[in-house]
Every structure is written in C-alpha cells, then in structure tokens.
C-alpha cells in the first residue's frame, strides 16, 4: 500500500506571461486532512482545476496510489473517486435533498426512478457520519449548513474517497463550523483523504494534519501542523507579517446621524416579513456592525435603508431629516453613501470605463456637467485623482473598461467613489467579500479612517473576524430582528455565535434598556 493516495508532482501551469503554478508538489496521504493555504491568486484554484482535469499541465504529473494517471476532464476525476464541495453550492433549489443527492446517478429500473432504494442508502450514510438531513426537505427551505451537508452527502453517495472542501466555513456559524470539523475528522478516521482549501488559520490549526502553503504560484512548502504556529503560516502565505488586529483608536461617538425606528420590510421570496420591527441608532464617529448569518434580513434591511426597496412600516431619519419616503437620489444628497453587497449587480456599470464609474453617483453635480452636457476633462481629472489617492490599479487607467479589472480593484473603485463623495453615513455591505488579505486590510483601514473623520459607519458583515476587529458596536440580526446588541471590546465570538444561530435572543425591550 502506498503512503500517498494522490501525488501532484512538480505541477507547472503557465498562462502566457505568468506562472500560475510553478513547480508545485502536493502529496495527499490516505486518511489525512491536508490544508491548502494561500491568498487569492496564489494558484489554489488552478491547482485544483488541474486535479479536476479542467486544465492540462505543461510539466509535472499526477499519481494515484503511486501510478501515473491522466485526468482529462471532470468525469475522469469523478471516476477516480475525487469529489468536491464547491464554495457556492451546486444544488437545485426546488428539488428535495434526496433528489439533489442522486442527481446524475439516479438509480433506476427500466427508466423508472428507484427513490426508495436511494433514500435508504442516503439515510444509512447520514447516520453513519452524523450528517443530519431530512431527505424530503426542499433545498431552498433548509439552512445553509444543512445544504452543505447535502453537498457532502453527494460525495459520499458517489463513494468518493478524496474529498475537496473549497472554503467550506465561509457561510457557517461558529457552532456549525465546529460540527463540520468533527465530521471531517470522522472522514479521516474512515480512511478518506481530505483537501481543505481555506485562508482561515484558526481552522487549519484546529483540524488539519498537514498544510501546504502557496504564494504567488510557488509552493512555499508543506508543514506538519503540530510543529508550526499561526504566525509562521501567515508569514509563509503573505511573505510578511500581517496585523491580525486592526489598529484603531477608541471611538468617540458624536451626535446621532442615522436613526432607524420600527423598520419592517416585506420579503420577496416568502410571505413573512424579511425585516421585522428593527430600531437602532448610529452616531457620528462610530462603526456599528450588523452581524448575522446570511439570509437573516440584512440584505432587505439595507435595501430599505438605501431606498432600493420600500419599507412596509417604520421610519428612517438621517441627520434629523426624515428620509423614509425619499428617492435614492435625495437620500444620496442627504449624505448617504452605499458600498453595495453585489458590486457587479449594483455597484458598477461593468461596460463603462473606470472614469465613468467614478462619477456614477455624482455625474449630475455642477462640477461634472453644465446644462446637461458632461464635462469630460473634469471627470478625467477627478478620476485620476481618485485612482491616485486610493491606489486603484487597472490596465489603462481612467479609460479601462471596468469589466477587465480585478475584483479587488473594482471594489477599491467603488470604495473610493463612495468615501470621496460628501457623506455623513457610510453603509458598507460585505465590503471585503471575495478579496485577499492585503485588500481586506486596506479596506478595513479605509473604514476606520472614515469613522475617524467623524462619519457614521454602518457595516454589514458575515465574517465574524471582521465584525470583531473593525466595529465599535455590534448588532446581531436573526430572522429579521435584532437579537442582541454588544460592545465589540467586551463580547466574544462564542457569545455572538449563540445569538447569530438563534440559540439566545434578547427581546427588543431588553436591548433598549441595555
């Protein structure tokens, strides 16, 4: 028996002009949990795509149980027992759990579906590994954690032995993360091999046996977790020391900027209200964070606050002015800046140039237009200034079509635009989503600088680390209500987790009384 079940030896994948994978060797032992660590663009995805047969390498070979194999396409990978839980689940929302699990490998007799047989197999698997699911539940009705279990069961149903988890914890609560870790350990004991892609060091320290670190397409080495530390891993990953704590001064809250009272927003997907009776204040010079697991009404609340959706009840006051029924433009004029959750859908016109996007909120101001005619040179000058000041990198500067820019720089452009615009309140919704460590650090600094300039900041975030590091005050949202309010200095991740998952909950009255 070979010690290694999969060996990727000296993998080199070159795209014209750039080495995406430069001589990377990754050896996966049978029955181990092997973490793959690296920033965005470090080559993790390329490496996994090679393993899945999506790319062919220039150099290097893949061995399975010591024998060289050729993986030409994902079907080959599946046939070899390689399965993957993608970061964004590949589930049919309106199908049941069982139907999703058997999708593509449906057991049938003369074309008739043998659901019962499949159901038994799924139940026995679910019992064996402690993956609690209801086979008849509809996917869109179950929690994200449950959906992930369905994805895992899909791999087990197909009898895969090599399981790849792509950033599996991003969408989970602390408690669910604990459970997932336990499940992963169970798999490893069973003799299954796990590749665990992540950039969260705590999780690696908790669960992995070994870790391979990639940096800029190169392999920085494979380390035994028991012989290493978090700091050493981060140095290997980034190539420098990273401040885990964001440096910031004590906040000095001033007058109330935003005041939200009894806000209720109807849901688009079900008959209940997505946001129920939410009230809170945000003061000048503080960062208030709206924390919670995805889908607990944060998106709908922000839509109501920024004017994208109508409120079904409640009042919003910005700087003493009632903006409940105001248009988006007049809210913007009243001092509201909004870094939207989805920069591609809302934040940018991707087919416009960078300079056209830089004035998306301000093109109508006298500075940039005169009696309806756009002042090209003024826009160019303004755009160049923002690019310089916020270090937005692009191929051709102001005239770059935004679609061709990298995600991090697109986000920088949105942030530059919203922060530079005259504002009293900055609403930042998941501003670091999908960005690498360097960009995240930068954005956190910008948020704090905005706070220190005396603005009010409302941050909506799903990342607990971000919530704890950046905010001054934390409001946890659960099922459309504020479940609790916390001081960021005194609370713990565990406590927040209890409120985020609905295990604990304060009534509105308790919150108001502090």
């Amino acid at each position, binding site marked *: 028996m070979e010690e290694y079940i999969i060996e990727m030896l000296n993998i080199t994948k070159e*795209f*014209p*002009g*750039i080495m*995406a994978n430069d001589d990377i060797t990754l050896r996966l032992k049978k029955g181990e949990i092997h973490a793959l660590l690296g*920033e*965005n*663009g470090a080559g993790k995805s390329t490496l996994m795509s090679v393993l899945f047969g999506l790319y062919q390498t220039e150099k290097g070979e893949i061995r399975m149980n010591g024998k060289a194999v050729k993986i030409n396409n994902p079907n080959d990978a599946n046939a070899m027992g390689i399965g993957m839980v993608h970061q964004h689940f590949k589930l049919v929302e309106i199908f049941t759990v069982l139907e999703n699990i058997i999708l593509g490998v449906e057991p049938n007799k003369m074309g008739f579906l043998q659901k019962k047989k499949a159901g038994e197999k799924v139940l026995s698997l679910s019992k064996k590994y402690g993956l609690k699911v209801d086979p008849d539940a509809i996917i869109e009705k179950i929690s994200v954690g449950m959906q992930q279990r369905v994805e895992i069961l899909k791999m087990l149903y197909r009898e895969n032995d090599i399981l790849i988890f792509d950033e599996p914890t991003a969408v989970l609560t602390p408690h669910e993360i604990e459970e997932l870790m336990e499940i992963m350990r169970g798999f490893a004991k069973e003799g299954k091999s796990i590749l665990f892609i992540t950039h969260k060091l705590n999780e690696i320290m908790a669960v992995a046996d070994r870790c391979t670190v990639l940096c*800029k397409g190169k392999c920085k080495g494979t380390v035994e977790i028991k012989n290493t530390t978090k700091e050493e891993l981060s140095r290997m990953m*980034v*190539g420098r020391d990273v401040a885990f704590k964001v440096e910031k001064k004590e906040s000095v809250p001033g007058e109330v900027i935003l005041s939200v009272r009894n806000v209720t927003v109807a849901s688009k997907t079900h008959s209940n209200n997505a946001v129920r009776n939410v009230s809170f204040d945000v003061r000048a010079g503080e960062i208030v964070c709206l924390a919670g697991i995805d889908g607990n009404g944060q998106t709908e609340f922000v839509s109501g606050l*920024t*004017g*994208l959706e109508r409120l079904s009840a409640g009042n919003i006051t910005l700087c003493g002015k009632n903006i409940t029924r105001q*248009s*988006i*433009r*007049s*809210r*913007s004029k009243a001092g509201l800046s*909004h870094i*939207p959750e989805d920069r591609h*859908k*809302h*934040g*940018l*016109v*991707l*087919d*416009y140039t960078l300079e*056209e996007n830089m004035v*998306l*909120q301000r*093109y*109508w101001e006298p500075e940039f*237009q005169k009696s*309806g*005619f*756009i002042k*090209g040179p003024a826009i160019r000058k303004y755009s160049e200034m923002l690019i310089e000041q916020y270090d937005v*990198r*692009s*191929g*051709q*500067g102001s005239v770059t079509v935004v679609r*061709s*820019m*990298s995600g*991090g*720089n697109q986000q920088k452009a949105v942030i530059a635009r919203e922060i530079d615009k005259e504002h009293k309140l900055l609403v930042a919704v998941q501003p670091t989503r999908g960005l*690498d460590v*360097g*960009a995240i650090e930068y954005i956190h600094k910008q948020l704090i600088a905005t706070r220190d300039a005396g603005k009010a900041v409302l941050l909506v975030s799903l990342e607990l680390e971000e919530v704890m590091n950046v905010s001054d005050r934390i409001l946890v949202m659960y099922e459309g209500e504020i479940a609790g309010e916390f001081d960021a200095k005194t609370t713990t991740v565990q406590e927040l987790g209890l409120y985020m998952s609905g295990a604990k909950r304060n009534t509105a009255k308790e919150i108001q009384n502090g």
Partner: protein
Amino acid sequence: MDNNKIPSSKTKLKSLVNSKGFSAFTAALLAIFLGLIFGFIVMLAASPSNSVAGFGTVLTGGLKRIGDVFYFATPILMTGLAVGFAFKMGLFNIGASGQYTMGMFFAIYAGFMWKLPPGIHWIVCVIAGMTGGMLWGFIPGIFKALLNVNEVITSIMFNYIGMYLVDMLIQRNATMYISSKTRTQYLPASAQLPGLGIPHSSVNISFIIAICIAAILFIVLNKTTFGYELKATGYNKYAATYAGMNGKRNIILTMVIAGAMAGLGGAFNILAPSTISGSSMTYEPINVIAANGFNGIAVALLGNNSPIGIIFSALFISHIQRGGTLASLFGYKPEIIDVVIAVIIYFSAFAMLMNQGVVKFLKKRRNRNAEVNKIKQNLKGEA
C-alpha cells in the same frame, strides 16, 4: 498601468483593432458579404444565365441612381435611429412602424388641412409628423414605466392600432382621400419638402436633416448626462437604480425620442416632392403595416445601434434596394428581387450575432492576456 505606457504605432493599431467600434464594423462587413453571397445564389437558382449581370446591377445599380438611394435611405435612416436609440437603453422598440405611420398621418393632415405660407408650411408639417410619432412612442413608454408592461407587446399592438386608425381617418376625410383611386390627394406644393435639385429623383432636404439628427443623437448619447444615464440603464439597470437615476422618466423620454425619430421618417417620406410636377407622394390606406418600420430594425442592427453606424447601414440597404429594382431589367421577377434583397438584409441583421462571434473570436486570445494582466496586477499589489 505602466505596461501600457509605451506609445508605438503597434499599440495604436492594436487599440484600434481592439476597439468596440472596429469589431462592430468588421462584423457588419462580414454579414454583408455573406448576405451578398446568398443573394447571388438565389439569383443563380432563379435564372443562371443572367445571374452575373443581374447581380452586378444589384451591386452597382444604386450608383446610377444616387439621388434615389439618398431619398429611400432617409425614412429607414430615421426608423433605424428610432430602433437603435431605444436599444441603447435596453428597450426593443418594435413599434417603429406604428410611429412612422402616425408621423406620416400627422404630417399630411397638417399638409391638407392647414393653410400656411410656403416656406413655413412644410416645416410645420414636419413638426406635426414628429409629434405624431412622439405620441405613439409615449404610450408604450408610459405602459413600460408605470405598469411594467413589456414594450415589445405594446408597441406591436400599437403598430396595428396606428395603421387601422390612420387608414380609417384618411378614408373618411374627403379633403385628403380620393376613393376612386384608393389613394390620398396630391399634397399642396407648400407642404412639400424643398428638393436638392438632383434630376429624376425625389431627394430633398430631409436627407440632410436626417444626417444632422443622427449627429445630434450621437452627441446626446455620448456627451450629455441624459445619454450617460440612458446607456448606464441599458448596460445595467440595477446599477442605474442604485445610482439614483430616474428610470421611469428615462424610459418615457427614450420612447418619446424614438417615436419622434420614426414619426419624422414617416413625415419625410410622404412630404417628399415628386419628380413629376404638379403631383406628390401619396398614401394608399390598404391596411398594410409600413415596411419601413421593420426595415429600421435591420438598419439599426447592421449599424450596431450607433447613430453614425445607422447612417451608413441605411445608405447601404437603400443602395441594394435600388440596385435590386434595376435588376428587373434582366428579366428577374420583382418577387425574386425582393427575395434577394430580403436575404441580404436578413443576413445583414445577423451583424449583431456575428459581432458577438467576432468579438469572442478576437477576445479569446485577449482574454487570456487580460487574465494574465489581472494576476500580474494582483502580484504587484501584494509586492
């Protein structure tokens, strides 16, 4: 940023080749080329012996009737603008025919019923025509903006409503209509557009006006805040809403402007002077939807919805139509000629599809390079 700073003729050429306009242009040429080949095949099948000479006439015949080419280009140039302009905002204005018919009706109504001094009369008629088109664009616009009714459905309905309404109103009006000849009377000379003095053709001042309007639309689209909002909405309506643009107002305004274009097309067509003195263009109310409206769709697609592109595509289609008409001298039945023209226009309308194809083909390599640049930038960002 710095890797693109070295200016050289090579990079200049590259940026020209890479520009959106260029790929649209090559796609249009490719579409035309394919259209011509298939047109030739149809002629070959219909009458092999005459096909070469006949096809030569289709290609070059228009040059002998350059005045007519301009004259017939004018209405489709205007309906092309009506379709293309709305398309920039993501609206498919299939109702150019109805707007065109309404514009024509308003123009001849002003021509027959109002007595005005020469020099002013035709201007009033043109403005009346524009108003008629605006009205017929405004209604689908209102439906779309306030009730979110798909503009395709309303504007198709309004093609029929407009056509039947106009036919009915004309047939009832004894001043305009001669029932024995089933056509309208000759328009008073004061209502007819001033000609450009090219013999044996009806080409008139409207051709020049149409080109000026296309230029104005180009400026509106590219130099004004309205154009900025309009294109932003067309590219990404969510971002437009997020930026606080007034989507409802812009939808209505865009449809009104589009309607005005088509209405002007109708007015320009009917108010043109005739080559025979004492007569004029006439309209036959025979319950047929104006073909010029639909041809506008082909014109807009071939011209990539750009006002400048539309000028050239209107001229091309008009040129082919003139040539086709002359090819009947070689014994081709008018129906065959119509088929040939239709085939050419049909393929030309594929320009947009091919545009995507050409872009994809050209971009395949470029995308890889772009991806590489992206990674490079990231690496730089980290370093």
